[in-house]
């Protein structure tokens, strides 16, 4: 009698030799894969925990300056070069792959207030407390040569910041007023001023290259158009902005680092209310730099930490701190989107990974596939309370932790008082003002 039953030949399922790969027949029928959601949840939980285990962002510390690092500039053509200016007038050029200083020059007597590279990468500019603007070559002098600037411009007032145009041979300095210079001339082609106080920083827009923004000491941010010789408009906030940075992907978005511990992302077309307020620092924010993707930015603060914020969220996704790192004055995000450099008060420049748990180097295809799968799992289950708790958890130094707790209590108390006041007064007498609009004093055209 012929009976038709399943009969398997083991040769079809077992490998022939030890050199072969194992055979793995698949059947994707969900009936054979029960508990899909709980198992994926456990995998997501493991992926989140491992991400925290592998989160070791600190890479190296560049030692060598003899005074606090005041400003930094990235080389536009080379990913492994970075320039830094210190408070004793020294400018050092570093090689990031060897993590050593390749060139030192005494640029100014006094602070190096600003440093910027030319868009072609062959030269850079520095401004200092000795009221000069110096133009240097990027390659060092030959053997036995002295460090001499290509060009020195003497000014009448102290310059506090410099930035170079992204396409043309034009640069802008700020101090008493914003001056726009041509590289060949020794006097500015035009001077822009609006307001009475000094201007602390100026930045050119990388996309709409004729636009500039500047931050002044009288709490305002002024936008200029280089093609006209008058400023465009300004927004007055309630506390001074230290510096601003344009989004390299969105032409009209810029983020400003403010003294009231917040960062404000503005759309330059609608300055009445910021697009987003980023609240997480507990002390004045000193510097901000965008990632080349335009989706995130990093901010350096007086509270000895640097934070990475997504553009569309009000809270930071990451905080980096070390016991040795004191007040962070300047921060930069490298052009390959992988590293963050921060220069601080204690004469060191630190190199961090932008993505703390990323594995550097070439990944094998299986590794990459596993990483992508874990990333997707984390994204899928990110809102579950246990996973959210683990993903959000960061160690903070005691000072920042206690200060943040205090600020939270103060904010909550203020809110409760306002609520009570509103409850016990005539309905409609105190309107709800959104948090965004609270910090803007005025917009002037």
């Amino acid at each position, binding site marked *: 009698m012929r*009976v*038709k*039953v*399943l009969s398997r030949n*083991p040769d079809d*399922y*077992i490998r022939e030799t030890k050199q072969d790969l*194992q*055979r*793995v*027949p*698949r*059947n*994707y*029928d969900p*009936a*054979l*894969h*029960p*508990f*899909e*959601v*709980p*198992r994926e*949840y*456990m*995998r997501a939980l*493991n992926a989140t925990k491992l991400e925290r285990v592998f989160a070791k962002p600190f890479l190296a510390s560049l030692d060598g300056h003899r005074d606090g690092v005041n400003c930094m500039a990235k080389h536009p053509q080379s990913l492994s070069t970075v320039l830094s200016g210190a408070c004793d007038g020294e400018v050092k050029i570093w090689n990031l792959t060897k993590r050593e200083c390749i060139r030192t020059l005494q640029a100014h007597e006094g602070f190096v207030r600003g440093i910027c590279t030319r868009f072609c990468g062959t030269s850079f500019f520095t401004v200092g407390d000795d009221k000069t603007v110096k133009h240097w070559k990027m390659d060092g002098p030959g053997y036995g040569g002295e460090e001499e600037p290509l060009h020195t411009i003497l000014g009448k007032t102290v310059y506090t910041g410099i930035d170079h145009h992204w396409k043309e041979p034009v640069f802008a300095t700020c101090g008493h007023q914003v001056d726009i210079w041509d590289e060949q001339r020794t006097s500015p082609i035009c001077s822009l001023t609006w307001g009475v106080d000094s201007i602390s920083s100026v930045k050119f827009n990388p996309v709409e290259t004729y636009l500039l923004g500047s931050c002044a000491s009288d709490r305002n941010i002024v936008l200029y158009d280089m093609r006209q010789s008058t400023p465009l408009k300004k927004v007055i906030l309630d506390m001074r902005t230290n510096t601003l940075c344009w989004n390299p992907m969105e032409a009209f978005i810029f983020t400003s680092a403010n003294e009231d511990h917040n960062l404000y992302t503005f759309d330059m077309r609608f300055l009445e209310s910021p697009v987003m307020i980023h609240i997480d620092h507990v002390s004045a924010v000193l510097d901000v730099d965008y990632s080349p993707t335009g989706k995130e930015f990093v901010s350096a603060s007086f509270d000895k930490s640097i934070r990475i914020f997504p553009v569309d969220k009000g809270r930071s996704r990451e905080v980096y701190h070390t016991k040795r790192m004191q007040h962070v004055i300047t921060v930069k995000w490298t052009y390959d989107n992988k590293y963050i450099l921060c220069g601080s008060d204690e004469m060191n420049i630190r190199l961090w990974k932008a993505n703390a748990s990323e594995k550097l180097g070439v990944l094998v295809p299986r590794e990459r596939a596993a990483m992508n799968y874990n990333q997707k799992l984390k994204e899928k289950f990110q809102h*579950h309370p246990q996973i959210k708790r683990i993903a959000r958890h960061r160690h903070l130094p005691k000072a920042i932790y206690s200060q943040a707790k205090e600020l939270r209590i103060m904010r909550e108390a203020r*809110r409760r008082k*306002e*609520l009570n006041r*509103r*409850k016990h007064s005539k309905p409609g007498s105190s309107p*709800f003002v959104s948090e965004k609009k609270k910090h803007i004093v005025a917009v002037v055209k």
Partner: protein
Amino acid sequence: MSLPGPWLGGSPAAPLIPPISPHRHLLLGGQRGHVAALDWQTKSLLCEINVMETVTDITWLHTETMFAVAQRRWLYVYDNQGVELNCLKRFNGVLRMEFLPYHFLLATASETGFLQYLDISVGKEVATICTRGGRLGVMGQNPANAIVHLGHSNGTVTLWSPNVKEPLVRMLCHQGGVRAVAVDSSGTYMATSGLDRKLRVYDLRAYQPLQSLVLPVGAGHLSFSQRGLLAAACGDVVQPPHKPYLSHTLPRAAHSLRFCPFEDVLGVGHGSGFTSLLVPGAGQANFDALENNPFRSQKQRQEWEVKALLEKIPSELITLDPGQLGRVDAITMEQKHQERVERLGFDPQAKPAFQPRRKLKGRSSAGSLLRRKKKVANEEQRTKIRKSLEQQQAPEREPKAAPRAQRPALDRFKK
């Protein structure tokens, strides 16, 4: 094929209990204490021991390296070489055991009415539940959601999860005691047989009976195959009952039934040994090697074990609906929203009041602004009224059904 067992040792009243591991290993246990483990396909013997005590139930643990034997007094865990690994004294009087593979939990039902869960990966007792249902001699497992089904002598089947001290569901299935419970691998059907000689099949999603069959001799043991065939052991006849697909008569009464995972084979333990029957169409033809690979090597087994332990589902997630984690918890969301509104004083998600846009060329005079505002306000009022009407009509439809069932008996005389 019938295996004449040299290990029977001439003990005719030695019923055998054959569980088959997901990986083609067979474990046989005799009531007098004889336990044997063998690779069923190559017929190579792994171990053969006598535990010198009455054996009530045996089961493989997560791999073919360990098995658990419920002996008369305590629960023992043995290696596949027959070496005793553990004696668990907290598990006394165990009658039935079920292993939940994805949770690494061993669920045991005792004669004193206790349901205990043991986590075999860490060796801790996860839960002890006093079921208050008397002697728990009938146990089944729903492989789709890891819920344990217990059959009781009052005809009820109760469903248990280790997190809850009360049964999740209590179903009245039979008019006498329940003799056997089996759930199919997709978790939709439950087959129960009782002392009233009936075999009933229930839909587990709605807890409704689907079919009911009367058998001349009630079925003492039930088992579902991977493809949905049901085997019932009625005395010494084994058959899938509702359409008499196959039937086989055994020399002695059957004591245990289990389908082999990826083969068309049914293993039956009876009074004079073990018999395996060919049942065409019972097994799943295409297995997934990353889940259950009957042809795996030792290295593959070790890798699989590590991955399975990493993915071990904690016992807190055992619920009636395994996909509940993937759904939005609307109740908590509502609650959190209420708390937020209370804390802030206003609703951050409420739509702001409509502000008509300021148009040029004289189109934004006071009258036209008012007209535009009124238009939007009227539209909103209309949608609100429509919604409230729908809500009113929905509960009106439901009460109409109830009165029909509860109509008093004398209503039939009303004109």
